[in-house]
């Protein structure tokens, strides 16, 4: 990849970047039209969740996809965002916007604190440590009386308002918020992947030993990836809390959220710009629809289809679904 990028002239690099940006703006604009066409509340909910998880998976992708650090504990940051936003709003009346920012900063700080020891762990040791850390968080929130312990936190009913991020009658504002979050995470990814951080991250992923010889920058770049990734994951968690208006430990910090953040990227194509969105577009509606139509009374058929699909796609398309439409040679995700 680097050879071909170096060989091609700077102007074509710039124009290809510009083209990617134009495509993205067109895609975002087209998505923005969707609420004008869809009025069904159920369908809107599915679409909002799809955009939210596209954004979350895009955030996960920064650390897991580009940097190759397979975190299976991002539910921790999601939950921290949800709890920070809910607690600040419900206990102190602070607007969720402040809560989103606070949650993001707290999560980024925690990611840095946890990253310091855990980035010494390699491969499966790292992944399992992230599961365990998130599980400790879940257990602590289960027992934290101030935050409602296992009962959780209910948001008060208020009139529709952007200030409180509460919209009971019309779901479109949630849709636009989720789209905005996805657009921001996409743009952050777009901006970073061709910066020096982006190159370092791929170097870490490709060959950590060789990258290590470059010294401390590798560790710092992992830390940066973790902090940015955690920040946006927490913002997504805060938004989710505002969207559902009720949270408890299992509904925001359960292990399944860690999976739901990693899976779209893996299915769509890790370490690619559109992989997480493609994955979310397939996975989230599928999960919601199978749960609604097949999951009645815990029949389990939804899990069978969901699990089967994950298995088949990961086995038959290890580079992700995106590799079907993109020849491997041109795909940055596959080349790195």
């Amino acid at each position, binding site marked *: 990849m680097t050879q071909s990028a170096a060989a091609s002239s700077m102007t074509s690099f710039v124009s290809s970047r510009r083209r990617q940006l134009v495509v993205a703006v067109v895609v975002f604009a087209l998505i923005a039209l969707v609420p004008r066409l869809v009025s069904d509340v159920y369908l809107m909910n599915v679409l909002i969740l799809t955009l939210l998880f596209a954004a979350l998976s895009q955030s996960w992708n920064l650390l897991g996809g580009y940097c190759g650090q397979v975190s299976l504990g991002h539910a921790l940051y999601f939950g921290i965002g949800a709890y920070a936003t809910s607690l600040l709003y419900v206990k102190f009346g602070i607007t969720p916007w402040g809560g989103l920012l606070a949650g993001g900063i707290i999560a980024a700080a925690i990611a840095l604190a946890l990253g310091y020891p855990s980035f010494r*762990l390699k491969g499966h040791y790292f992944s399992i440590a992230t599961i365990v850390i998130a599980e400790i968080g879940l257990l602590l929130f289960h027992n934290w009386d101030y935050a409602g312990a296992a009962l959780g936190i209910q948001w008060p009913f208020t009139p529709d308002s952007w200030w409180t991020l509460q919209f009971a009658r019309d779901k479109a504002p949630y849709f636009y918020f989720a789209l905005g979050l996805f657009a921001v995470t996409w743009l952050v990814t777009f901006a970073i992947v061709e910066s020096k951080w982006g190159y370092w991250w791929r170097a870490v992923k490709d060959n950590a030993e060789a990258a290590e010889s470059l010294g401390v920058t590798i560790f710092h770049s992992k830390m940066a990836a973790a902090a940015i990734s955690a920040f946006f994951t927490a913002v997504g968690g805060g938004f989710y809390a505002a969207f559902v208006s009720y949270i408890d430990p299992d509904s925001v910090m359960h292990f399944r959220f860690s999976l739901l953040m990693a899976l779209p990227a893996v299915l769509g194509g890790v370490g690619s710009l559109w992989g997480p969105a493609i994955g979310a577009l397939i996975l989230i509606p599928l999960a919601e629809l199978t749960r609604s139509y097949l999951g009645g009374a815990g029949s389990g058929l939804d899990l*069978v289809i969901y699990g089967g699909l994950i298995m088949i796609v*990961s086995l038959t398309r290890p580079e992700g679904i995106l590799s079907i439409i993109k020849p491997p040679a041109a795909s940055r995700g596959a080349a790195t």
Partner: protein
Amino acid sequence: MTTQAFLQVIASGLLMGLIYALIAVGLSLIFGLMDVVNFAHGEFLMLAMYATFGLVFMTALDPVVLAPLVVALMFVLGVAVYAGIIRYAMRAKANPGMVQIFATFGLALLIQGLAQYFFTPDYRNIANTWLGGRTLNLGGVFLPWPQIFGGAVSLAVFGGLFWLITRTDFGKALEATREDQGAVALVGIDRNRVFALGWGLGAALVGVAGAVLAIFYYIHPQVGGTFALIAYVTVALGGFGSIFGALVAGVIVGLVEALTTLILPASLKSVGVYSLYLLVLFVRPSGLFGRL
């Protein structure tokens, strides 16, 4: 607290720890052999528990008598999962680590869904067994016989496993394959066959654990998750691939969990284990007995 009560906690923790070790060792074995983490390990355990339940229901025999049959069934399952899924997952050229994680995760969800569909989410248990409900009184320390049986089986299995690996041709092939996958082909060892047998053995081992656990634990489709994380922690604490590590770590996990309940509320009993695990890992990133 009295000495007796303290001894009770230690003894219970020790017995549970031996069972944790038994649950974890199959996972560690497979990892040691081929660097693959089976994220459906908990679901294997759950299937073994249902198999025990089902066989007891059908034959009205005691679960202890039926255990070998359960173990044999699990061996077949392990070989089938290797041949049908893992073999293909290992061929992935892009993102091999993630493919393994998500292929086995997908399998875990699939098995869970099937269990919910066929067995319903109800909690079940095996009543009226030979060992069930009986306790041993050791000078005021009460130990339930199913757990004692489980601990004894665990020790026997570990003994057998050490013998298998150090004394048999299969064990030597296993060791050789984990040392150098390329070189074994040169001396005529079929790598695929060793891997398949390794998966069979790994599943059979968790099958033993499931058969033992089914005697005294509730059986439901999510039961795997309860034990899976403990199993991953045990394996990582002991060092991935280390059989001896799994035994030591299992006992440590059981003891720490039991001791944690003396200090923290029962709902936080795992926090002690998880914290210790993280502490050890941050000091020794490859676990207690892991090879780097």
